[in-house]
């Protein structure tokens, strides 16, 4: 079938949203111009840890163009609340996590470089920035010794005076004594120490917010680069107490990538909204890239000790993992959940390991807060499991693929209860492993390695059999575990009188292409032409409450809500058609956009029924209300579990330490796929971020808490010539508990890739103690046998 003939589920339909992006007519937050707008610039801490003694504002307030200098003390005096953390994690002793105060603008302590303590509002961007820089120089502080090292943070003096220590929580999951028993009877124990490097998300569009306050109505309109505008509105109303929820409209227009970093509620959107009411003029702010580096919540940053116990047949008996997770200076919106419920619960991987015990120390340091970044906890878990399994295979001199195969959960074991809380609904891990091995020509690797050796080049191959949990659910379970929000999604389908369809979704698209894929789903379900379905998202003023896009949840949860709403539309359509066709509604068939009665040759099109809903001639409105619009809220019964095998083959030049990826194969099981073209694009992007973590990217603070990698000159983003063409394929086991059979695809690449790359590089050079990112320098030192690697 030609690419554009079929536009329903399963078709690689070209994207509806592309025309505006390729013609420069997109509408990103910073593109918006409001009459009378003013410019905000934030004054930020130059110190990792300091007490504020005084913020003299007079000199700055008198600078040209400056309209207002608003400090953290002003904000506190206005009664605005702090930024909450949305997930309360409990320590193993049953106590709640320690939670520091998190004022949007610091008023007593500065806790990391970039921590905002004031904003300057001016007539121009330049004047605002100049004044803010001056304020950073004039603030009077007492410098304190910062806590930067994750290794020693828990035992260092508390960075927050109101807390007893830097330990946010000591969390555990799994059965400690069962794991202990497993290790006691092990024939072989494999131990590994790992670090998971801090990453800076780097969506290409910097964060931005524009707020306008109407004194007449008391309403705020806030445009913001948000992955979940309703959550921002909720927090502004319920926690920051800016205004009642119904007086705040948040619009997230075109958003230029998020990768997690735009889920969270930050100081800046709160501050510009507050300032717009103080000044009675619109206030705008867009981050410079330097500000993005300093303040967009970072990702990863773990130190881990892991052990695997195996019996004589190399079957996994047990696993123990102890992790120190860096939470940064404050708890970001979901920062507490990422290294716990999104990490420890994934430690079974694809394997039938009977006993697992995981403990995590979440610790505060004087660094930028850490929160969800593409994969969020699951890349860290996969990295632990897959580096550990690979290491065990090497120690046992077994083929790493064979060791994995021997321990995979088998298709007849589903639903599979893991020892770390999750219940996998379905999967076929051996199918994706076999397909990947074939595509990678795994059997031919030794020949290629010897061939490379004759050219003086080291060659390695590495596997990563990952699993992830997506579409976080169900709400009750999440709330039992400490979540502060439900995890359902909403949809509304409005059928217009002419039969075209407007779809309103609580999911948010910032690159994922929902305007296309969601239209494909509704088009097929209702039998309406693809071109006649419009998807609306990202505006609290236009749709019901929604929970936004993160954790690869949009199609699994938001898409399922679309199906529920569509079912209601069809059911109402049958009532209307029943009156017009003079048959009971339960005898009406609906198929491919046509209502018909099997016992006669009469039928009505979807558009005819839609018209009759609004022009109810011969439709008794006391029995069937006029109009054709339906809402649905879908709460999932379980997570979805995408899984797959990634195989990376590398060449390493021993003279320079340079790593070149020769081939990268990704075989993923995302369940049913709505648009293969878009799904493959998601995999490409995720893989590149995963390869970036393994080879290039590292957010580094020096001992004073200064970010050394604060620009694209020092933080190495993957460029086009750093990555290969990927070989992407799929296997399909449909999700068993949602109506589309879908699992989600947004994060898989970033989850699977780092371990595959590191397994390949360490195999190539014959040394296992290499940390990410394995830069040429690090690899060269390792090849030389130097200790520092």
């Amino acid at each position, binding site marked *: 079938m030609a690419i554009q003939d079929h536009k329903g589920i399963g078709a690689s339909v070209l*994207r509806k*949203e*592309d025309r505006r992006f390729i013609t420069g007519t997109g509408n990103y937050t910073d593109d918006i111009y409001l009459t009378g707008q003013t410019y905000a610039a934030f004054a930020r801490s130059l110190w990792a840890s300091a007490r504020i003694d005084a913020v003299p504002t007079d000199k700055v307030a008198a600078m040209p163009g400056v309209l207002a200098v608003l400090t953290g003390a002003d904000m506190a005096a206005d009664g605005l609340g702090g930024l909450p953390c949305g997930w309360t994690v409990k320590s193993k002793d049953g106590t709640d996590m320690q939670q520091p105060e998190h004022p949007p603008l610091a008023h007593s302590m500065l806790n990391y470089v970039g921590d905002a303590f004031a904003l300057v509002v001016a007539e121009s961007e330049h004047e605002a920035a100049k004044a803010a820089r001056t304020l950073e120089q004039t603030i009077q502080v007492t410098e304190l010794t910062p806590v930067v090292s994750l290794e020693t943070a828990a035992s260092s003096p508390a960075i927050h005076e109101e807390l007893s220590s830097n330990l946010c929580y000591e969390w555990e999951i799994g059965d400690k004594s069962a794991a202990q028993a497993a290790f006691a009877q092990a024939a072989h124990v494999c131990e590994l120490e790992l670090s998971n490097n801090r990453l800076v998300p780097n*969506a*290409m569009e910097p964060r931005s917010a524009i707020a306008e306050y109407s004194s007449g109505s008391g309403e705020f309109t806030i445009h913001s680069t948000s992955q979940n505008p309703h959550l921002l509105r909720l927090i502004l109303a319920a926690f920051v107490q800016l205004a009642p929820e119904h007086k705040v409209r948040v619009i997230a227009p075109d958003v230029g*990538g998020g990768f997690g970093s735009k889920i969270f509620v930050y100081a800046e959107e709160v501050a510009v909204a507050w300032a717009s009411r103080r000044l009675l003029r619109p206030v705008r702010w867009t981050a410079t890239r330097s500000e993005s580096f300093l303040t967009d919540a970072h990702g990863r940053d773990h130190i881990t000790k892991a052990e695997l116990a195996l019996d004589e047949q190399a079957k996994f008996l047990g696993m123990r993992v102890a992790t120190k997770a860096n939470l940064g200076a404050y708890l970001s919106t979901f920062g507490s959940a990422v290294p716990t419920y999104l990490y420890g619960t994934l430690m079974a991987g694809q394997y039938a390991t009977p006993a697992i015990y995981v403990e995590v120390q979440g610790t505060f340091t004087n660094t930028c807060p850490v929160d969800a970044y593409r994969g969020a906890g699951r890349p860290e878990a996969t990295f632990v499991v897959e580096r550990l399994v690979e290491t065990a295979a090497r120690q046992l001199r077994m083929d790493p693929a064979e060791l994995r195969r021997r321990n995979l959960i088998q298709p007849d074991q589903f639903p599979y209860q893991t020892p770390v809380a999750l219940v996998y609904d379905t999967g076929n891990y051996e199918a994706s492993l076999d397909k990947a091995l074939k595509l990678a020509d795994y059997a031919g690797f030794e020949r290629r390695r010897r061939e490379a050796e004759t050219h003086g080049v080291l060659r390695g191959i590495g596997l990563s059999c990952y699993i992830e949990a997506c579409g976080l659910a169900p709400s009750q379970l999440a709330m039992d575990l400490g979540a502060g929000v439900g995890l359902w999604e909403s949809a509304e389908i409005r059928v217009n009188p002419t039969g075209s369809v407007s779809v309103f979704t609580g999911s948010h698209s910032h690159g994922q292409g929902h305007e296309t894929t969601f239209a494909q789903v509704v088009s097929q379900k209702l039998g309406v032409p693809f071109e006649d379905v419009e998807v609306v998202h990202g505006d609290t003023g236009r749709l019901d409450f929604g929970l936004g896009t993160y954790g690869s949840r949009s199609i699994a949860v938001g898409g399922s809500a679309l199906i529920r709403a569509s079912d209601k539309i069809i059911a109402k359509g049958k009532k209307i058609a029943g009156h017009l066709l003079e048959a009971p509604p339960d005898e009406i068939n609906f198929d491919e956009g046509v209502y018909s009665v099997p016992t006669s040759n009469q039928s009505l099109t979807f558009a005819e029924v839609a018209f009759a809903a609004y022009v109810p001639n011969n439709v008794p409105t006391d029995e069937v209300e006029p109009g054709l619009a339906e809402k649905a809220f879908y709460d999932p019964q379980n997570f979805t579990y995408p899984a797959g095998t990634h195989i990376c083959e590398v060449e390493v030049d021993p003279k320079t330490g340079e790593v070149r990826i020769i081939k990268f194969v990704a075989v993923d099981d995302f369940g049913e796929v709505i648009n293969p073209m878009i799904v493959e694009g998601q995999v490409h992007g995720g893989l590149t971020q995963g390869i970036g973590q393994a080879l290039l990217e590292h957010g580094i603070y020096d001992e004073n808490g200064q970010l050394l990698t604060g620009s694209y000159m020092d933080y190495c983003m993957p460029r*086009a010539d750093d*990555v290969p*063409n990927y070989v992407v394929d799929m296997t399909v086991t449909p999700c068993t508990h949602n109506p589309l059979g879908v699992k989600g695809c947004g994060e898989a690449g970033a989850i699977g890739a780092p371990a595959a790359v590191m397994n390949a590089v360490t195999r190539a050079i014959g040394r296992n103690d290499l940390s990410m990112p394995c830069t040429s320098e690090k690899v060269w030192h390792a090849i030389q046998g130097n200790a520092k690697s």
Partner: protein
Amino acid sequence: MQISLKVNGEAHQLQIADNALLVDVLRKQLGLTGTHVGCDTSQCGACVVHLDLRSVKSCTLLAAQTDGHEVTTIEGLADGEALHPMQEAFRDHHALQCGFCTPGMILSAIDLAQSATKLTESDVRRGIEGNICRCTGYQNIVAAVLDGARRMKA
């Protein structure tokens, strides 16, 4: 100061600040918001436009330097409803996701296609090294640039 500048075929007499950057004049004075700013160190390429048909980073050029020259932005590529062949290629190969890097990427790609008789994959990967994309992993961009270059010559 005053400059005369042709943008997307239209002549403008503009009063600008001496230190105004070209990207700010395009975005703020002329309302051409298709050109984006993604960094502050001239690395990301979101701001690429054409100055007399060659790609330049408009965040790194003073508007004053463009006096008497001709600038093409992403808004100037399509001919009414008819897209430029490189724009079509980006759409057809799913070479964009969030779209933020796309305008700069397309303008760099056109310059690359115009300055080479025949492009290889590695020419393209090297040629767009000054444009960072965080979404696509570049694979579809490379395919689009190769195809767009072919279409431009057709």
